[in-house]
């Protein structure tokens, strides 16, 4: 049983970058001084992942105001709506509002990403369903529209070297997609297969995966992601057997450092039940909800779990880079 480690979604800023961000807002430092600190932090995050032998490097989205803003600000036809609470957190975002024909400016979009020197490179984006719900367009046309946008986004990222795009969805648990909406989601992921050498994942955040398994398992993605803090393993569908999984194992919403043995016990149960062909372990949602030092400690715990898995031996899992 040899899972591997990955980050996903927004990573928290260090206290140094927090101070720099505030100082930029208060005009105490200029853009170039801020950019220098941001770049240093970006490099540090890549180095951290390399040290922990992550098979994919995630950018961390350290300068993103929220999950949607880079997409919104890189598109004509979209503008930002009013500040809205993100799920049940104390973090807020500006949802997309459609005002015209949506077209992505790839050059502008790519400026939001720190690119690692080393590959493979993995990116987390919101799912088309999440975008559609946020934009109050929960209908097949809305999914299609945002699906087209995300296809453009995935395509331009792939041309820059991204080989894995994980689509996160924190709303599917509460806003169950109907049959027609689901049909559009299937169409979206089917179309993504046209992008050569792109691995895809669908990560169900902030929900019990079992409640949405029927909708999600029909999606033609390479990896299925689930939050183990909210998903009882005993109820996991056998349809997940031998699939590739992204498993959220540490609590991104609490500063308490998770116990490696507890995580190992849960992984053993999953691996015995589902015999996944590959598993990536990660935080259960974005680590932006804890301070950066805590976030790094939690990822270190996952790295320790992986070491323990290797010592314990078990099934080898195929290389994720082959499709």
């Amino acid at each position, binding site marked *: 049983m040899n899972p591997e480690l990955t980050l996903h979604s927004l990573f928290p800023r260090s206290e140094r970058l*927090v101070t720099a961000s505030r100082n930029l807002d208060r005009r105490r430092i200029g853009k170039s001084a801020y950019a220098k600190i941001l770049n240093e932090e970006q490099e540090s995050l890549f180095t951290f992942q390399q040290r922990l032998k992550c098979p994919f490097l995630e950018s961390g989205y350290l300068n993103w105001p929220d999950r949607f803003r880079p997409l919104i600000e890189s598109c004509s036809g979209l503008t930002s709506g009013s500040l809205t609470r993100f799920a049940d957190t*104390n973090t807020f975002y500006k949802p997309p509002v459609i005002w015209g024909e949506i077209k992505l400016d790839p050059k502008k979009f790519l400026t939001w990403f720190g690119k690692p020197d080393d590959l493979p490179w993995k990116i987390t984006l919101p799912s088309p369903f999440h975008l559609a719900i946020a934009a109050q367009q929960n209908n097949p046309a809305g999914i299609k529209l945002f699906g087209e946008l995300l296809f453009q986004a995935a395509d331009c990222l792939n041309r820059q070297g991204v080989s894995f795009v994980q689509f996160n969805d924190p709303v599917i648990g509460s806003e169950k997609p109907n049959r027609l909406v689901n049909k559009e989601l299937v169409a979206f992921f089917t179309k993504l297969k046209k992008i050569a050498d792109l691995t895809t994942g669908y990560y169900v955040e902030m929900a019990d995966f079992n409640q949405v398994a029927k909708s999600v398992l029909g999606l033609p993605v390479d990896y299925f992601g689930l939050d183990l803090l909210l998903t009882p393993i005993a109820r996991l569908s056998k349809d997940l057997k031998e699939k590739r999984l992204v498993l959220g194992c540490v609590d991104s919403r609490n500063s308490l*450092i998770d116990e490696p043995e507890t995580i190992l016990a849960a992984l053993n149960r999953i691996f015995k039940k589902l015999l996944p062909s590959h598993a990536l372990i990660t935080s259960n949602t974005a680590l*932006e909800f804890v301070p950066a030092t805590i976030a790094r400690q939690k990822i270190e715990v996952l790295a320790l779990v992986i070491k323990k898995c290797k010592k314990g031996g078990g099934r080898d899992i195929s290389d994720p880079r082959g499709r």
Partner: protein
Amino acid sequence: MTFLTHEVGSLAKPEWRVRAGSLQELRKKDLEEAVVWGKKLNLNYQELLKLLKKPKLSPEDITQVKQWSSRYALRLEERAGLAAVYDGEQQRSEMYHYPVSHSSGFVFVGHVRSFDHKFYQKAAVVGQPAFRLPYHLEEFRFAKSMAHKPLKVPITGAYTLADWSYDEYYLRADLPIGTVLGQKARVKARCQFTHDVARELIRPNILALVEAGANWVQIDEPAVTTHPEEVPLFVEAFNLTTRDINCRFSIHICFSDYNNLFPHIHQIENCHEYTLEFANRDSKTLGISANQRPGYQFLTRFKKERVKARLGLGVIDIHTDFIEPPKLVRDRILYGVKILGSPDQIYVTTDCGLRTRTWRIALAKLTNLVAGANLAAGVLKF
């Protein structure tokens, strides 16, 4: 007679108070601000200037500067004509940071992002939450000595303090994951944490305020409806906090789906007023039809549920510099009366605190709140 009017809590802190409080050099414009507002509010600002011009401020000087800020804020609210006032929370840092940093059992662990480049310091509970000193008592005593109007004291509620904190005490790191048992244990830990904050922290603070003469306390619970399944826990916390205390209590909740409060709030024992936000969602058109007042549709549910408590009707949007004309305020109130059936059930308030607005804007909005309330009372002959 007219509608009872009040603000919700915070006002912006003037730069002279912020800079003095953080030992930064005061600029000419900061001192000018103190003079301009001192004149406007009829205060003996010369005393404040003398203090601000000191080359070095001692801790006692800083306390006095903060008290001056309280004076200014009290006078601003009184100048607007509000029936019940407070000091705009001038002596506090922030609604979460202040109570947590003045209590035992918590440790700040670092910054997390609220939105854009706004961050806040978040704490973890690391031991049993405990009362150290009543952290709003001195501020209340000062406000009481200065105010010309009745006071309403805002205090952050137990549910919000617990929800906005990490848990490193009630939760165990070795709780199983991927099991229903583990999930239930997490829920139990959360309940224990919230109950302890209510009982050991908020309740003693309120008792101290009441003993010092406070007769109206507003409990701020912005986190309540973020977890709809936990509204019963909030109700338990509120009841634990306020049970058998002889005081008028309001509950302030903003920017939420208020439908999630039902049916659970029928179990609330001692709530005089629900102060809720509506103007943020409303149109700026005059009129008292449902189409003209889209922000107030929740009132139908409030009426249907036969809630006995008063409704603090948010008629001022705190997110914009738009100065609501008195007639717009009037129509928002008249619509409220139309739906609820009686003016007796309505107090007139802002949506939330005005700390993101300048004092100039805050005073204009509050003045028009009062003017609008008087217009509505005139129409109703109330």
